[in-house]
């Protein structure tokens, strides 16, 4: 190994060790209540993760936010007040789910409305198709029998044989 390569490796090792000592957000939430509240908040670094789950190295947001959360919980503040405090500081974006009031509550209704509309369509289709089937049966019962040709008879015999075979194969 050349001396320049050795030097490069030593430098890299130093940088690596130094980086390991870079302060990170590592202050764990002190209580279960703080943990539970943390799941209702997002990390504001832009990672799109829940506050208590953001573990991005060198994240500038989650550490201070977790400390802030712990401080609120230690003071014994009510959950709603703590959440409200975060909303005032960071905006509604800090909430991990849309609020259930106002315009943003629409997000909660969309799946339910989609289900209701879809269910309505499915039920309407089933009813419509059932009516068609009833109409078909009525027409079939009043229609004259289809004349049998040699080919269709052969096909019928083969199909009937196949049905019986399938019945035997799948019977209990």
């Amino acid at each position, binding site marked *: 190994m050349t001396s320049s390569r050795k030097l490069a*490796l030593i430098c*890299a*090792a130093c*940088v*690596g060790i130094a*980086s*390991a000592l*870079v*302060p*990170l*957000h*590592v*202050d*764990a939430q002190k209580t279960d209540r703080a943990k539970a509240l943390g*799941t*209702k908040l*997002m990390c504001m670094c*832009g*990672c*799109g*993760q*829940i506050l208590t*789950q953001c*573990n991005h*190295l*060198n994240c500038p947001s989650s550490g201070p936010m977790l400390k802030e959360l712990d401080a609120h919980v230690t003071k014994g503040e009510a959950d709603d007040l703590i959440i409200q405090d975060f909303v005032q500081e960071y905006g*509604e974006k*800090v909430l*991990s*789910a*849309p609020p259930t009031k106002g315009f*943003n509550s*629409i*997000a909660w209704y*969309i*799946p339910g409305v*989609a*289900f209701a509309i*879809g*269910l309505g*369509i*499915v039920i309407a289709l*089933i009813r*419509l*198709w*059932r009516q*068609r*089937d009833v109409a*078909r049966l009525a027409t079939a019962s009043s229609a004259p029998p289809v004349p049998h040709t040699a080919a269709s008879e*052969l096909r019928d*015999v*083969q*199909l009937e*044989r*196949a*049905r019986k075979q*399938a019945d035997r*194969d*799948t*019977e209990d």
Partner: protein
Amino acid sequence: MDLFGSYALLLAFAFALYAIFGGIAAIITRRPLLIKSARNAGFAVCVLIWIGTLSLWYLFYTDNYSMAYVAAHSNRSLSPYYKFSALWSGQEGSLLFWSFLLSIYVFSALFTYRGKHPELMPYVGVVLAGVQIFFLTMNNFIASPFQVFVGSGAGGILHLATRADGSGLNPLLQYPEMAIHPPTLYSGYTGFTIPFAFALAALLGRYPGEKWIHLTRRWTMIAWAFQSAGILLGAHWAYAVLGWGGYWGWDPVENASLMPWLTGTAFLHSVIMQEKRGMMRVWNVWLVFLTFMLCILGTSLTRSGAVNSVHAFAESNIGHWFWGFLLLIVLVCLAAYFKNRDYLRSDNQLDSMLSRESSFLFNNLILLVACVAVLAGTLFPVLSEAVRGSKISVGPPFFNRVNIPIAMFLLFLTGVGPLLAWRKTSVESLKKNFGFPLIGGVVVAVIAVALGLREFYVTLCLLLSAFVTLTILSEFYRGARVISARTGSNLFSSASQLTMRNTRRYGGYVVHFGMVLVFIGISGQAFNQDKQMDMSAGSVMNLGPYNLHLQNYDSTQEPNYSAERATIDVEKDGRSVMMLYPTRRFYPSNQESGTMVAIASTLREDLYVVYAGTNPDTNLPVIHAYLNPLVKWIWLGGAVVVLGTILALLPNRQAVMVLSSATAGASAPVPGGTQPAQISYSARSQLPDRHD
């Protein structure tokens, strides 16, 4: 080589233009020579894209740092393995890789059906070339991976510049799975282009009957299998690399991959209705269209920066192109539909509410509602910003609350659907088929509650999982017993014969079982535990039944990074059971850090340990440990899903025999019909009132 690759892509673009316009001319004039030349142009496009992609790989392996893309995503000390995966680590390369995978599908489809289906294939060729044109436009003119560094010399004369070394690959991507996950997922995304092209071509060309469905069934299943595997590999990568203890965060990019999977799954089910009963023609065509549109939407979300995501590429104006392409697809699909919708008319009839047909309708409803829920959650922040001027976050609490009930309903239908007969199921049959599995499910739930389980959805999931598993087992058992009685072979051998006689049906059951395993694995999330501690050598952390003794820290030096490693002795019941080595890496080339999580995985639980950093207050290293139950079941379930899909792709053994006998019998017809056994299995698919 940069010029070589660049020219290859440019030439591919020119050939793709010819494939489109020549193809349209061929459709209008019906001249065989023109049809053939348009198809050959399609082949040429694919080969040229391969050449372009291979050129870029060559540039990576030869450390050509005059290329901006290579310099931004590689460096000399990067291992050859990651130089391979570096190709798709950035915006430009990943778009080329998309074209590359698409070209493999296009080439395969054009080659497989060369000289066949003369009424359909020219349309297919035009649609496929249209999609390729878009991506080649990106590769050539918008996001070329072959851009070079240019320096300014004396007198302002520009010259090619080069760098001594590259910036290196993003540490998060320096993980073995990153060489597998993106190609797998992209193969899913691009694979859905084939059924889309056939559906649109059949509609444009008014191709008669259900033929396009038969032609694309296997292509759709292959794309679906890749999409499934890609999603799960992505989840596994997130679990093993990101170090947050989870595998699915409802990130927009994750959601983008899930949406086409949901509609693709709906299509794979509803298409059976069209095959068996000629029903839902309009619906199936639109499901394929929708699946492809969602693939493009997903890609645009990943690349446009419209939504925040840890997985997204850097924000760029490339998104406008994707939105434009998406709009064009919607317009073309709508125009084709309104012009030829009478061709899709079918006489849908339903004998009974209690039928396989109804279960498919509900299956489609639930999958589509799940897709709408995911789409709404993903795009709602954008909508909110447009309406109110401020973005909101839609995170896991929303998605979990909305999707868990949907998933439970879907699991229920997974068990119910296969046991319902086509046309009509009698109440007696219901009792006979459902009695045992339902009792089994309830017994499992009661035992779980008796053992202290109090989580409603977890209990319900266990009940339904047992129910579905028992319905699947009873289906195998019933069929195998009949074969066993006839042939005298044991039940396992009979089950194997049964499966090979109808691979699609029984492969489908295996896929369902895989999904059950995935659901069970996900349900374990309700019992996750975690603990975080500042730990010096000799300190102990208790987590569940484990004691984690931190023995020491050491550092190592590798060519591409330096690493800090903790050595942890894990004890259970007072005995040392394993050693774990959570590690943090630092990559000097791009000044970034990454974690290497230590995971001890069993079927019961994962002990997941992260070297999280250093506490600034105590200056001590911090260890974050998680105990995640049942996670391994998810990966196991994913493997079963893929195996089941492969099984369903195999040809039926009996069908092969029939075909060969039929060919032999063509020259010497058998009086009075044919051999009974051959007829029985070939004709079974025509029987409308049997299961399949």
